[in-house]
């Protein structure tokens, strides 16, 4: 029973991608970036609508699964991709070399990869989805090909990404060797408690974890992130920090809770260390940064650490704590996605006389020259620091609560302490914007309208989330019921 219509969103997006690619190539013109970007945003929205109408079940020989968890992640992935592309609309058009129509097409194909990742029900689907997303990401990182830093970012990402893929594949082949199947369903059947944790299988699991930890840039596989985030063009960095990270975290969650659910005692310890390490490094390494994109890279490493607290709680023996943990994780990633894109919209608007600037000092005196942008940035920075009425506070609260209920008190303590440290550098940006005198170089350029739209949309969500938290919480709850209920 193939039941391929279940995978309609991916199929439709892939067909749209091919058509859009053709529409970009054939006219032989140089101004196709804007129309193609609009077409891609349209295709992403269409795919989102199709995802909302998707049914439940496994399809395509059990290699693909559609459930509430996958749909929740897919909608967020598509929102992230569409917003990241909107961010690029004006940014790319000021630089002739960035305004090429392949940019939106690559984002579209990366989105297909991410959708496959969160819908994977087989180690092979997992790998192909991950590789599709990664390959598009390597090219996007190097997209500004005349910039040495961009080329370096692309090459570094590619080489280290290939290494991570190698680790992941090695782990997957070991899993296949020990269990004899790659299907998640049959892995879950085979790995029952009595003969689950053979030493070889645990080794294989560690390799798989290492490969996936690289993709979400968690400590100790984070070393690529600051360089790549700094070198890649700002809209590309915004994309890296948002949708792919959410997709990889969702994928990790599904892999660990479904096929390897019985090995939670083993992966729980590993993730505890990864989570604590990411939070600590993200808090302390960001303090000395002057480049704001590097700072956001360390911030995203730290945020992955906080999100993984939820996954550590999902290793608990108590089913209630498990679902609490996964829910906190999904909730955290959803809010992180929108907060990050908003902050990057501000970074993308940072230009002086047409040239992008990236130092924290360049924001000095922003409150006097552009109070609107300064206020949005204040909202995002306070939300990331976890200041109470904003969305970032609730997401942190949920993961800490899940950790305490699961008995991981130390992890929660580390989380709270590193939040305080991280608050220092978030608040420092606010101080620079509002209280520092503008530098000699003059004020920043006026921000383009498309970035204002992104800032306002994500900013309103972040600021007013507490007014109506119901829908997101309900959606996260439904998603959790599908995999950890």
């Amino acid at each position, binding site marked *: 029973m*193939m039941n*391929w219509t279940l*995978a309609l969103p991916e199929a439709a997006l*892939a067909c749209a*991608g091919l058509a859009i*690619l053709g529409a970009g190539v054939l006219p032989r013109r140089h101004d196709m970036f804007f129309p193609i970007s609009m077409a891609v945003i349209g295709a992403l929205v269409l795919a989102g609508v199709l995802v909302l109408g998707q049914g439940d079940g496994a399809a*395509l*020989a059990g*290699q*693909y699964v559609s459930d509430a968890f996958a749909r929740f992640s897919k909608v967020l992935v598509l929102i992230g991709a569409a917003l990241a592309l909107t961010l690029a609309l004006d940014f790319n058009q000021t630089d002739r070399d960035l305004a*090429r129509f*392949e940019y939106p*097409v*690559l984002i579209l*194909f990366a989105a*297909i990869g991410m959708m*496959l990742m969160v819908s994977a029900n087989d180690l*092979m*689907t997992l790998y*192909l*989805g991950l*590789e*599709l997303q990664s*390959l*598009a990401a*390597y*090219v996007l990182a*190097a*997209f500004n*090909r005349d910039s040495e830093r961009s080329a370096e970012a*692309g090459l570094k990402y590619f080489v280290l990404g290939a290494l991570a893929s190698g680790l992941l594949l090695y782990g997957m082949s070991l899993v296949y060797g020990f269990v004899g199947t790659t299907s998640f369903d049959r892995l879950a059947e085979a790995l029952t408690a009595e003969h689950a944790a053979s030493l070889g299988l645990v080794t294989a699991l560690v390799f798989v974890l290492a490969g996936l930890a690289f993709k979400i840039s968690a400590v100790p596989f984070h070393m690529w992130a600051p360089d790549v985030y700094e070198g890649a063009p700002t809209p590309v960095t915004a994309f890296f920090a948002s949708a792919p990270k959410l997709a990889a975290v969702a994928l990790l969650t599904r892999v660990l809770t479904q096929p390897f659910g019985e090995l939670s005692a083993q992966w729980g310890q590993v993730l505890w260390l990864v989570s604590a390490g990411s939070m600590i490094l993200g808090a302390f390494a960001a303090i000395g940064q002057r480049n704001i994109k590097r700072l956001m890279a360390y911030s995203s490493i730290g945020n992955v650490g906080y999100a993984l607290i939820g996954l550590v709680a999902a290793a608990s023996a108590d089913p209630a704590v498990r679902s609490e943990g996964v829910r906190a994780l999904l909730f955290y990633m959803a809010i992180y996605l929108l907060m990050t894109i908003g902050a990057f919209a501000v970074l993308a608007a940072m230009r002086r006389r047409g040239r992008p600037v990236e130092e924290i000092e360049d924001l000095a005196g922003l409150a006097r020259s552009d109070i609107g942008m300064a206020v949005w940035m204040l909202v995002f920075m306070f939300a990331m620091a976890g200041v109470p009425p904003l969305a970032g506070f609730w997401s942190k609260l949920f993961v800490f609560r899940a950790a305490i209920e699961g008995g991981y008190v130390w992890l929660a303590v580390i989380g709270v302490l590193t939040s305080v440290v991280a608050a220092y550098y978030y608040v420092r940006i606010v101080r620079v914007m509002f209280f520092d005198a503008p530098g000699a170089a003059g004020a920043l350029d006026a921000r383009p309208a498309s970035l204002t739209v992104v800032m306002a949309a994500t900013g309103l969500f972040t600021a007013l989330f507490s007014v109506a938290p119901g829908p997101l919480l309900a959606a996260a709850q439904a998603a959790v019921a599908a995999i950890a209920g």
Partner: protein
Amino acid sequence: MLAAVAFYAFSAVLIASAAMVVVARNPVHSVLFLILAFFNAAGLMLIAGGEFLAMILVIVYVGAVAVLFLFVVMMLDVDFARMREGFQRYAPVGALVGGVLLVELLFVLGSWRFAPEAPGLRLSPNPGATVGNTEALARILYTDNVLLFQAAGVILLVAMIGAIVLTLRERPGTRRQVIAAQVARAPAETVVLRQVPIGAGLKNIGILRPPPAAEEREALSEPERHGHGGGHH
């Protein structure tokens, strides 16, 4: 009987040409022997009942890989005599590594056990025995794993887009053929008919070449204007 003869013939030629690949002094000959070896291996596959593998061997290895080798060998000026210079110096190390590998191989083969079902399976190369192995492979590839197959195809497409995006640069001043413009040209724009007086010659009428087309005229007038300017100074 016939199959046995074919088997030994193919095997003998295969081994001989494989040996020649290593021994031949001229690298082009090596590649040609490699192609011969591939063809004979394909013949062996046919005898064993693997017709799909036989065809794919010819198409992929002979058609693509070996031809690629041939291109590389012919295009790169590799001095094979110099590459062999250090043979005597490196021979002991090479022999040592080869010896270790041989011992390992013997260990592996020494503890090799055939599964009891293996001889039976070897006689039926087709898994279901109701379909040919091409069809059986096609079912696995295009029916069971269609999602993976298509995803792999999209990955290759992205790799191709990436290679083009990162490396293709349009040079300024390249002249492209615009077929539509060529077809749309009317005879009146290109051909001039004049009555030429007998014995007068073309020079006196002032036509040695057709009048330049609009954009060419513009390109021509540019340096001319500069020339006039210089004259006035």
